[in-house]
């Protein structure tokens, strides 16, 4: 079509020009997208209680959801501590220490627009604890109930107040509750009503399957697209209740990449902007190309957990202390692990509120270690044979074989003859629960299973309390020390947070003084990030706040 009329032509040109100008701001404010290569082989579950350990919580828990309590992830220098989340305050009942009152944060809505209130809290507690509740989901129970072992029930007091009950007095409850993520009951009910199924159980399962594909929490990120095993796309929740944590990036794409070299190549080729745990031997190249490397001490311990059953060589405290003094952890860090560890001098390091003041200093002192061994009756001509069960790989195990071989060589200088019993990771993990007396231990007198030290139960109680011996929990070596039992009870029943922390510090100091484990290393959660990404704060935590991140 030829436009002959000059006025019309001029008007069209003006319109086009205006259109072009109008298009400029859109180009200038194009969506910022942060692409992350995870170590997971699949997207962690998206329905509120993620699988795949704390990597799951990091990516599909704390992003899309909130819990009643949360972690302070704002500092790289201080230990992460528990802070208010969807609850603004909480208090234990003075008369009955099994009852807690939680005041809820007003004005919070789920991503689907439904309100967050006491009914939602009760519904979310019952999804994992009340077997006859319509929303009960067995697949979410394992990853939830074990992280809050004493939580028994929830009751609505009023719209903005709930009462939680524990099986026994337990001051750790507010810390444990960081793991119970609040999913939208209204959204689930919508899927339940639409679901086809022969019975309520089948409908419930169908509703959870649908919810996982189109989830709604209250978190700073909203689900925008999901392709199982390929990617999860999240967009910022501009209406997030905590204005300081409204994401600065418009979109975040999570990509499962279980192979370290593949993750590193994806970063180097510009396919992603951020990778978790890059291949250690690629670190120099990554640095040289301008990528930023982040690492910080994690609440994580790489130990040998000693058997204390009758006849175990570790029953002699001189032998336990000697092993702890015979390992050059700095050498392990700077040599084998290219700096990617923090030497462990206990479960918690100085600066942590639960560290305490141990009198036994865990450090490298070969002469002192040899002296202790000689006092215990060993020497160059009479070595002490110990057998360690470990794995060739596994979540959190860092580099289990080379690290154990390093220990083998180091301890040989202190008259230990270390034999390694290497088994598959899941089998080792299963054997962990069976204990040192079980045939599955294969005669080993120590096991090498790493552990997360986020909360007091996981970090201390399950290993040190005598009643936590197999088959109850992870006191693999059957430690039976009345002092530990007494201190565990004291910590659990001290409800003032500062006094509770002091009691935990006392328990931790006692465990170090007793050389309860061979403490070797803490993982540092290494990640490599494009220089385009700014504002990254890597706290002393398994978690990280993606809301703070910007893209240049």
């Amino acid at each position: 079509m030829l436009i002959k009329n000059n006025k019309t032509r001029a008007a069209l040109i003006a319109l086009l020009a205006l259109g072009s100008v109008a298009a400029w701001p859109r180009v200038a404010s194009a969506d910022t997208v942060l692409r992350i290569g995870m170590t997971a082989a699949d997207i962690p579950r998206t329905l509120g209680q993620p699988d795949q350990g704390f990597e799951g919580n990091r990516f599909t828990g704390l992003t899309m959801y909130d819990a009643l309590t949360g972690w302070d992830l704002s500092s790289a220098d201080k230990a992460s501590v528990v802070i208010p989340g969807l609850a603004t305050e909480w208090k234990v009942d003075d008369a009955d220490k099994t009852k807690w009152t939680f005041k809820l944060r007003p004005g919070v809505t789920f991503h689907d627009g439904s309100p967050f209130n006491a009914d939602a809290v009760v519904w979310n507690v019952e999804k994992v604890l009340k077997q006859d509740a319509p929303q009960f989901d067995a697949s979410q129970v394992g990853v939830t109930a074990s992280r809050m072992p004493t939580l028994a029930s929830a009751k609505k007091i009023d719209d903005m107040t709930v009462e939680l009950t524990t099986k026994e007095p337990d001051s750790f409850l507010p810390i444990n509750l960081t793991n119970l993520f609040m999913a939208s009951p209204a959204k689930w009910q919508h899927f339940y009503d639409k679901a086809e199924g022969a019975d309520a159980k089948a409908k419930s399962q169908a509703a959870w399957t649908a919810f996982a594909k189109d989830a709604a929490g209250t978190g700073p990120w909203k689900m925008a697209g999901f392709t199982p095993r390929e990617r999860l796309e999240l967009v910022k929740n501009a209406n997030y209740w905590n204005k300081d944590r409204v994401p600065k990036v418009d979109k975040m794409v999570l990509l499962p990449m279980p192979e370290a070299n593949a993750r590193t190549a994806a970063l180097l080729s510009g396919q992603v902007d951020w990778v978790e745990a890059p291949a250690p031997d690629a670190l120099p190249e990554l640095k040289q190309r301008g990528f930023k490397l982040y690492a910080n001490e994690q609440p994580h311990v790489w130990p040998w957990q000693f058997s204390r059953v009758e006849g175990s060589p570790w029953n002699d405290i001189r032998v336990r202390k000697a092993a702890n003094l015979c390992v050059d952890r700095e050498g392990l860090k700077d040599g084998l692990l290219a700096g990617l560890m923090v030497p462990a001098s206990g479960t918690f390091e100085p600066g942590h509120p639960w560290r305490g003041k141990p009198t036994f200093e865990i450090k490298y002192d070969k002469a002192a270690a040899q002296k202790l061994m000689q006092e215990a009756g060993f020497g160059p001509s009479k070595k002490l044979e110990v057998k360690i069960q470990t794995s060739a790989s596994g979540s959190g195990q860092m580099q289990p074989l080379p690290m154990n071989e390093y220990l083998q060589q180091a301890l040989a200088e202190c008259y230990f003859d270390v034999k390694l019993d290497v088994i598959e990771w899941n089998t080792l993990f299963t054997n962990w629960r069976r204990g040192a007396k079980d045939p599955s231990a294969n005669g080993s007198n120590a096991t090498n299973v790493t552990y997360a030290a986020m909360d007091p139960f996981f970090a201390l109680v399950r290993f040190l309390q005598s009643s936590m011996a197999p088959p109850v929990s992870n006191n693999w070596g059957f430690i039976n020390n009345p002092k530990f039992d007494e201190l565990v009870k004291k910590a659990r029943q001290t409800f003032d947070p500062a006094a509770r922390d002091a009691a935990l510090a006392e328990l931790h100091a006692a465990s170090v003084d007793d050389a309860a484990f061979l403490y070797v290393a803490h993982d540092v959660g290494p990640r490599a990030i494009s220089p385009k990404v700014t504002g990254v704060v890597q706290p002393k935590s398994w978690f990280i706040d993606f809301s703070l991140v910007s893209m240049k």
Partner: protein
Amino acid sequence: MLAYIARRIAYVIPIVISVALVCFLLVHITPGDPLVAVLPADASQELAAQLRVAYGFDRPLPVQFGLWLLRALHGDLGNSIATGRPVLAEVMRAVSNTVTLAIAAAIIGFTMGILLGLIAGYFRETWIDKVATSFAIAGVSVPHYWLGMVLVIIFSVQLNWLPAVGAGPNGSNSWAWDWAHLKYLVLPAITTSVIPMGIVTRTVRALTGDILSQDFVEALRAKGLHETGVFRHVIKNAAPTALAVMGLQLGYMLGGSILIETVFSWPGSGFLLNSAIFQRDLPLLQGTILILALFFVFLNLLVDIAQAAIDPRIKRG
């Protein structure tokens, strides 16, 4: 021919049942707890017992197998323990990705293999043969995950031409045969194709050389048949054996390669198998192995039928 097909299908039934039994038992007799994917080692005994009942792992093994087989025959392979998603949907999605990769790799590998094999066979003991044979030997000798990494370093990291990992661009939920998707396929397909390329080259070279040295070829030439006609006879005589080898290779490729799919984060059946093993997700592991084994069995069946159709001597045997 119909009787032959019926006989071959009848052979498949006991094989399929045996495969189902073996893959069920293999997964159950390995040490470790089947609930490890959902049950941390620190979970209480009470909780462990509760979930064991919920997932049916408290029942005797023969009962578990019977129920599993019955459901499998109805197309229900249960739900993944780790993700809660239906196993069949998980496996079929992964298989479709692997099929895409296998088709691309087969096109590259078989075309290259047949070409190189024919050239080497026609020019035996010359430098051309040596070059082609070197390619074939390299194809079967080089560790393919290593080759994958080298290709990624060159074409993704250094040249930035092709993506290093993944199966499609962000925002895409399904496969499409356009460049935006195809560029994700190039490196894994080339890597996957090297072994079939090498094997097919060697097979076709040997067959071509053997056929060319036979008396009937001399006779054809003596009768004045044009070289194109002779070539047609060579192809026809080489086809059944070459087809069998290619069918087997296609079977291996459809089974997925754990290493290649992991190196490229290609969400196929090998990748799925890898995560099912690491998560110790029993229903997913059993379902994946079963479907892959069935693929293999039925592919062999198709190859046998195709061979019989091409070479009538086979069905007589």
